[in-house]
């Protein structure tokens, strides 16, 4: 992932210019984490999914 692109995301989309100056040290981590999840989600996340499914799953697991 381009460091310049990340710098732009921090400086322009998040309006955090100070953080943008430190982009270099986060770039490798962000690239790796983003790629792992992007690949897994494309492979395994069903269309009928929801960011709230976990709470519903937990509620079902609560038998007390």
């Amino acid at each position, binding site marked *: 992932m381009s460091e310049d692109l990340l710098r732009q995301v921090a400086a322009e989309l998040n309006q955090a210019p100070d953080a943008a100056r430190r982009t270099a040290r986060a770039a490798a981590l962000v690239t790796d984490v983003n790629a792992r*999840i992007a690949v897994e989600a494309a492979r395994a996340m069903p269309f009928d999914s929801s960011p709230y499914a*976990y709470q519903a799953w937990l509620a079902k697991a609560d038998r007390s």
Partner: protein
Amino acid sequence: MQAAEIAALDLGALAKAIADGEVTSVQATTVALDRLAGIGHKLNAVVRLDDARALNAAAAADKRRASGAALPPLHGVPLAHKDLFYRAGDLSGGGSKIRENFRAEVTSTAIARLDAAGALDLGRLQLAEFAMSPTGYNESLGHARNPWNPAHVPGGSSSGSGVAVAARLVTASLGTDTGGSLRHPGAMCGLIGLKPTWGLVPTDGVMPLSASLDCSGPLTRTAKDAAIILSVIAARDYLTGIDAGIAGLRIAVPGGYYRELLHTEIAAALHEAIRTLTSLGATISETAPPDMALINALMQLVMSVEAATIHRSWLIERPQDYADQVRARIEPGLYYPATRYVEALSLRAQLTEAWVASCIGDADLALLPAISIPVPTIAATTEGDPADVARVIGQLTHCTRGINYLGLPGASVPSGFDSAGLPIAFQLIGRPYSEAIMLRTAHAYQGATDWHHRAPAAAELH
């Protein structure tokens, strides 16, 4: 009873002594306040105490007992908590420069439940800046010191809570756990650090770090004390059945990833703990974890995105008021696309099911190392090549951080000491809402071992 004898009592014993009139609440509170002010300050475990309010409350508790009124379970017992649990009107600094003058407008439900159970609230304890470090790192307020050896880290982020309970300043303390922050000080100070199932204990009125991962829970010397506190703050019963033993219990021991960094002394203690659990009637099976790099990546993304969201305005306006190590943990969250964040949350249930199937299988619990390496020195986590520092910090959370993404309950259980005299612990992980089985297992283990009875010299009990 002498001050040192009172300080040596665990939570259950102190609550009983106060209820039976063997110790007054004023005596217990005076002892705790003196020790927090003396030993606590030496170990940099204390942020603020309210002596007058605590002693007034203790006197009122003694008066109530004298009246013959029915007493709640923690009547008159002095406690102190991590400085991110709000009490309306009180300062709550969150270990930070930025919030040093913040006064809470609400009282957290967990604190209100302890109040209703009769516990006294003496004040607030040290933590890592914004609860962001597994070592307890705090550049602005100074690092808390491990009572077993003050040159070593106490574990964080609930560092002051771990120090205060291990050094016998209070019998229990609330902390929070977003990536291991109860289990780290638990493991490194020789305590039970219980991270409940995500959502079991309300986190309202607690300074957030990452709402999808944050859990509040107790640090105590014994599993039974953890059950007492959890029963209060979760408003459920974890004491009934805790003495039932573990004959027939099935414990899975995942290998692979969870053995990768294991130091030989930790491995030996883990082996011995498994032997002890077997002798108590548990059966052991070996299992294999799924792709932990993926689970750790998901935890990193959720934690940093949620932290960056709530910290963004301060990152813009007051970047100089963060320690660099703390900013470095928050700022990656500024870069991920929203689709990744929603994907991370959407995958959570199915990946948790997959982890449970792989690591626990048909067993009741999984047993993991708590910390794979010996407790490091403060110098090893703050000085020298930043890459070396980052490597040590990463090693500390190797077995803990993924559990927060999964939302499963976990507890550190003290299981020995290394050759430098620092505590070693294992970690029990259960299915959602299996805290009762975990506590019963830890309680049975503590019945067969004496690690939790050993006090550090810094406790000054003799």
